[in-house]
């Protein structure tokens, strides 16, 4: 509609207003992305001059058995996180969507872990989960007479535990997103269904879920992006250990670049990460048409 209207602004005005954004975009986002792709073909280690090594970094990466584990860890973490936040976020949203007194208090309370730092969250859970003296194991041992594992010390449990802590921290955020979606569904559908004799259970599956699908898709997309951002929680809780059991691609970039100073190799890892994210995002958008419906 505005297209035909004249405007008070010239195109160069827009570019002037965009100077800081463009500076940030090119200097801190796009520029480094290109630079990282070039670096991934070198053996740069900060000290010596970088030398072109072709595909060596990628070859080393694919022949290293640790990397198979790192990639599996990355997917496992993402899978637990994405499925977890969607189910738990939706459940929380359904509960706080009920019209009872004081529900805003509960919403705010559930959101609290989102605003706290991953570092503080990591420290608290490290303490609660520490073997023998941590509160979780104290309760399990003394009240339930179980012999619980050292959650963060064993390869079999550690990744799941860290992913669940991150999911615990973030579920309040997904609750808010789902809540907004739930409140957008027109009430008349539920009233009509009730008149036709549908149960609450039926309306959830036949009305809520299908009409919520655009929100679910959006949440799904955000959750996938978010699931790769796990550096802080891993750094505070496990430092990638024990023996690489919680090393994900994101963490591996950090370790290679800033602990071993293998900048070139780290850039190759970063590019693998980028490709993984790219593939998942494309699949996500391709599958969209099969389950998301935008019409009410």
């Amino acid at each position, binding site marked *: 509609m505005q297209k035909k209207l004249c405007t008070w602004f010239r*195109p160069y005005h827009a570019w002037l207003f965009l100077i800081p954004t463009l500076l940030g975009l090119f200097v801190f986002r796009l520029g480094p992305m290109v630079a990282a792709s070039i670096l991934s073909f070198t053996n740069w280690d900060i000290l010596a001059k970088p030398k072109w090594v072709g595909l060596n970094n990628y070859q080393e990466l694919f022949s290293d058995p640790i990397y198979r584990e790192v990639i599996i860890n990355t997917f496992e973490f993402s899978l637990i996180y994405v499925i977890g936040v969607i189910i738990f976020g939706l459940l929380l949203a359904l509960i706080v969507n009920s019209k009872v007194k004081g529900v805003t208090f509960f919403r705010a309370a559930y959101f609290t872990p989102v605003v706290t730092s991953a570092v503080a969250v990591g420290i608290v859970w490290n303490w609660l989960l520490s073997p023998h003296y941590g509160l979780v194991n104290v309760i399990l041992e003394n009240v339930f007479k179980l012999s619980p594992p050292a959650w963060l010390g064993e390869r079999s449990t550690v990744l799941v535990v860290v992913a669940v802590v991150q999911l615990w921290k973030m579920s309040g955020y997904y609750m808010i997103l789902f809540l907004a979606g739930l409140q957008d569904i027109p009430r008349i559908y539920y009233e009509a269904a009730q008149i036709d004799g549908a149960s609450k259970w039926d309306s959830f599956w036949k009305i809520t879920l299908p009409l919520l699908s655009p929100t679910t898709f959006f949440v799904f997309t955000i959750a996938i992006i978010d699931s790769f951002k796990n550096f802080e929680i891993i750094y505070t809780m496990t430092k990638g250990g024990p023996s690489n059991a919680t090393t994900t691609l994101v963490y591996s970039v950090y370790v290679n670049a800033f602990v071993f100073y293998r900048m070139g190799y780290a850039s190759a890892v970063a590019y693998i990460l980028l490709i993984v994210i790219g593939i998942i995002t494309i699949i996500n958008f391709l599958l969209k048409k099969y389950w998301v419906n935008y019409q009410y």
Partner: protein
Amino acid sequence: MKIFKKILIYTLLGIIVIIMIFPFVWMVINSFNSEESIFKIPPKIIPDKLFKKDMFENYITVLRDYNFLRYSLNSFIVASLASIGQIFTCSMAGFAFARMRFRGKTIVFALLLSTMMIPVQVTIVPEFLLMMKLGWLDTFAPLIIPSFLVGTFGTFLYKEFFENIPRDLEDAAAIDGAGPLTMFLRVFFPLSIVQTTTLFIIAFMNNWNDLLRPVLYINSTKLMTITMALTQFQSQYSARWSYLLTGAVLSILPLLIIYIVLQRFVMEGITHTGLKG
């Protein structure tokens, strides 16, 4: 039947509250405990320093002897400057995207949105190289500048808001002789007080909580941010849980206060854009 349903809902709400905030409550309680009492079995519900003369001993030690006052101040400086920067950058970009027509608008906007999907680890190695070349290592600049200039969430927030302002306002201002800059500064920006507050809070939280950049760029003890100091403290004095927990409480306290006072802005900001920074 009705009352039964209500009891059910409140029970459920109550159980989840315990799951979500008990760890923090337990942490605060134990920050008033001495080191020996933290690992007592059965756990002490009432901490041994509560309402005693040395009640705040852990806090005083952590703030003064372990310099956490300094680290909090550093975090405050970094987070404030970065957030003010985001307001500056994002409000101007949002205004341009919302009210102006220019070639390449969709491309620039799409680029901005798509870079949001990329974890910072993908670009951090060249960014580090750049900061090194600029001589900015071990200063606050690398913690502030990248966040200052990149803000997808904020741009989105302002764009949505400025798009919905009636065109008459723009016309009236232009007829009164306002140029683009005056129009933005005097007419549009002052209207966006809610968006500005929201962005400030969310950007402040994100920057306060950031860990990667401080860990990479800061070497001097006196420049450490509070999240970084906590992780350092964790690896150096891993046995001192009383101080570590106190430090953790101190690191989330400012955010918690801001959140409790201004939670409406946080929630609405996320609901409107679906993003959090």
